[in-house]
């Protein structure tokens, strides 16, 4: 029996029972990896010693397709990347191309875009909360969250005919005028939603088992977060007060007052609190938005055939998962020469190894849930 392990443990830590390090494969077909993600964990007994994410199972080559489509034709592909927050994907792409063209959408279009994007943020966070709680064992929140998310999807369906991959915006503004009763629907949802969030809070926030399972799990310090390029709620939960909607306002965000929630320790519990607070803030933005949607045209004066002058542009928005950026290079033709998407889930997932190292196997499921990744966006 080796003496008490003061020395550096040998790579294969053989314990009395001969249980040396085992490699555990989670996924790609796994109930709680939120899609086709495969995680190879090296375990020393119950503790994770090393982890490696193997991705690419959902790679459809979106960036290659973009080089053979015109600017308008590529817009629907963008919804398929982060299929949980399709509206904000569309907003990012349309605004990037508008910047490339040097034009801007009219004020009415920008306001409606802001409202729909904030609704989409709530829907995305609701889906995250439901599946995250389900992974940790709470069976009930998922049904409440999906009930609210259904209301939002109904609004999208009434506005643009689709629920999930909506293709709601066009380059230069909006395709459809808001249906009459749009303001009332959003108002009714927002009024009802504030009570719903308190319902989730009572179920989870003070629940000793929930706190026990999430506090101190998957800690990511602010310095590590910035170094790893992590953005979005994960960054804000580590104590960095940075939100693109405040730092570089786009659409109509500069007209609305809202808070940017942050927490200090950057563990799973803090990310849960930050996202719950973000849902409340998004609700406030929607309410401010529908107070007065300015009248006016909904489409900028750009021709049917878009030929942006040669050059390049990088534009990014605050998607529910983090900074979603589009780097588009145009060569003067109707088809983009190169479209590069900066996927927040892909880069946030890179921080998984830093969070999972040293944690227990049961926490790996909670850590995957708390980063809130969508594999469509990770693999593109």
């Amino acid at each position, binding site marked *: *029996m080796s003496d*008490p392990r003061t020395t550096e443990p040998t790579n294969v830590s053989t314990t*009395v*029972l001969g249980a040396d390090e085992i490699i555990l494969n989670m996924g790609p077909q796994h109930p709680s990896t939120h899609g086709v993600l495969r995680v190879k964990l090296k375990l020393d007994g119950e503790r994770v010693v090393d982890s490696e994410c193997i991705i690419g199972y959902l790679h459809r080559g979106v960036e290659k397709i973009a080089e053979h489509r015109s600017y308008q034709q590529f817009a629907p592909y963008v919804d398929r990347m982060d299929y949980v927050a399709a509206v904000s994907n569309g907003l990012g792409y349309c605004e990037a191309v508008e910047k490339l063209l040097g034009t801007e959408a009219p004020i009415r279009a920008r306001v409606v875009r802001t409202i729909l994007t904030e609704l989409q943020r709530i829907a995305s966070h609701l889906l995250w909360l439901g599946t995250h709680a389900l992974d940790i064992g709470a069976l009930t929140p998922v049904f409440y969250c999906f009930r609210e998310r259904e209301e939002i999807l109904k609004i999208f369906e009434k506005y643009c005919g689709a629920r999930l991959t909506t293709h709601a915006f066009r380059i230069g503004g909006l395709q459809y005028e808001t249906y009459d009763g749009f303001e009332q629907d959003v108002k009714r949802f927002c009024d009802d939603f504030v009570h719903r969030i308190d319902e989730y809070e009572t179920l989870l926030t003070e629940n000793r088992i929930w706190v026990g399972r999430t506090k101190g799990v998957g800690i990511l310090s602010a310095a590590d977060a910035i170094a790893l390029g992590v953005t979005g709620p994960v960054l804000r939960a580590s104590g960095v007060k940075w939100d693109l909607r405040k730092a570089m306002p786009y659409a109509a965000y500069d007209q609305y007052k809202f808070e940017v929630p942050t927490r200090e320790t950057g563990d799973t519990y803090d990310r849960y609190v930050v996202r719950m607070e973000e849902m409340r803030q998004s609700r406030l933005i929607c309410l401010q938005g529908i107070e007065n949607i300015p009248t006016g045209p909904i489409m900028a004066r750009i021709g049917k055939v878009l030929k942006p002058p040669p050059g390049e542009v990088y534009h990014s928005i605050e998607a529910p998962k983090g900074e979603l950026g589009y780097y588009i290079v145009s060569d003067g033709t109707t088809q983009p020469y190169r479209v590069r998407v900066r996927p927040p889930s892909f880069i946030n997932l890179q921080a998984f190894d830093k969070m999972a190292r040293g944690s227990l196997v049961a926490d790996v499921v909670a850590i995957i849930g708390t980063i809130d990744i969508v594999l469509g966006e990770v693999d593109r």
Partner: protein
Amino acid sequence: MVLNSILFYFFSALAVGSAILMVTRRNVVHGAVYLITTLLATAGVFLLLQAEFLFIVQVILYVGGIMVLFVFVIMLVNLDVSLLQYQFNRQRFVAGVLALALGAQIFVAIKMGQKSLFPMTRVPQMSPKNTEAVADALFGHFMLPFEIASILLLVAMIGAVVMAKRRV
């Protein structure tokens, strides 16, 4: 009475049979299961003797406690190594002598107890509440040995914890 003796022979046959099976099994888990059946069979015999408390203690302690530990250790220690080794060492001569001695002992026991081999007379009716009887004995008359035994167990437990602690 007929039912009593039928059950008695059934239990004892079960006990002896599974004991033999236990020894001869190559698969350790099968061995453990047969050991459990042996212990349950002896518990059955206790029941026949109206000693309900002993029956329950036998079931809880041996089968419910110690055997669970056995099965745990069997499953945790990976056995495919030990299965390959030769199970029996070569001290045939010593085994032979021991077997003879044991045989002689059993023969003498049977010889002495010739009369009570087939129990015709009914076992004296124990007081229905033998749990109280056992309790009085344990905490009344045999208080001191009981305390010593419990201290001994306590020391053993602490020893085990210390040994396990050092390895972690």
